[in-house]
């Protein structure tokens, strides 16, 4: 018996054609995300007791609190927003207060802040780095270039927004967004992680929305 799927709040941009599919992808549970047999039997056992859900949701809250308070961003700077991201990582707008240690390798990090313009030559690299990050992982699109191509949207070599390459959780507007608005985006991400599903539910990016 699987727990109830949380209702994702209705976003304002739901009428855009591309993003409907993306949202659909986000809501459907990946069929191949199975769990170890031992865990399934243990949770079945707990749920059979009256009030069993309380135990699992409490465990969820604890796990999500742990995930939320130590999200490690991979230092993935592309363009001008990377300089503002560096300013956010430094001592004046310190992200280490939020438990975020800027880490160089995607193998040890949970969050990818796409700061800068994603070009067609860079997109496969960006996808490879995102795939090489261990699950559960999140993506923050920083700056209007990553959100929608920004001032270079009509360039032939520019991908019109990073959500055509990887699923994005939080969009931070601005060109470049000042560190305060990036911090606001990261806090929004931490809010989102709080409602994280029990078993680390994250839509596997198996097919990209084009």
């Amino acid at each position: 018996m699987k727990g109830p799927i949380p209702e994702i709040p209705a976003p304002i941009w739901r009428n855009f054609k591309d993003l409907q599919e993306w949202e659909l992808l986000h809501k459907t549970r990946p069929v191949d995300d199975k769990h170890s047999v031992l865990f399934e039997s243990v949770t079945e056992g707990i749920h059979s007791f009256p009030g069993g859900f309380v135990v699992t949701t409490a465990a969820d809250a604890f796990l999500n609190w742990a995930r939320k308070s130590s999200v490690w961003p991979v230092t993935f700077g592309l363009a001008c927003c990377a300089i503002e991201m560096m300013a956010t990582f430094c001592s004046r707008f310190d992200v280490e207060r939020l438990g975020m240690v800027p880490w160089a390798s995607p193998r040890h990090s949970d969050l990818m802040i796409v700061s800068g313009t994603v070009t067609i030559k860079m997109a496969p690299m960006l996808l490879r780095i995102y795939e090489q990050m261990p699950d559960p992982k999140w993506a923050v699109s920083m700056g209007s270039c990553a959100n929608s191509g920004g001032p270079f949207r009509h360039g032939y070599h520019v991908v019109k927004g990073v959500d055509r390459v990887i699923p994005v959780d939080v969009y931070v507007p601005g060109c470049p967004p000042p560190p305060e608005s990036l911090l606001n985006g990261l806090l929004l991400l931490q809010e989102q992680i709080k409602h994280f599903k029990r078993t680390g539910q994250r839509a596997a990016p198996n097919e990209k929305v084009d």
Partner: protein
Amino acid sequence: MSPDDARSAIGARFSGAEVGTGTPLMVTVAPGHWAELAGFAKETLGCCFFSFLTAVDWKEQGLEVVAKVDNLDDGLAVMMKTRLGPGVSTCASLTPIYRGANWMERECWDMFGIRFDGHPDLRRILLEDTWEGHPLLKSYAVDTPHPPYR
């Protein structure tokens, strides 16, 4: 080497070249003398600082290659130009003379489709090798959609 005796030296050497006035000395030569002019500028005029090399697409009149070299000691700047003629897209390479021209000529091939013969390895520098078309030509639309990321 002040600008006016540089102008007279160029005039003497290249009869067909029009030499303009003004701070960067504009020298327009036929495509045949292109490498020769660059060698001349480097040896006799002493312009051994290679500033940049680019191309301009004049639609019907064809492509034009522009290069700028400076003489740092006397402050002399020479802007060399050659009109490749309509439909022609090959030009002599300056890489044997100025090593700085290597990347700039690869960019001109990438953006304008000008083949520089004599260039050690002419391949695309800014776009991927599988990219078709040369974007900075006037015939190339700005927002040409390229799968898979429209």
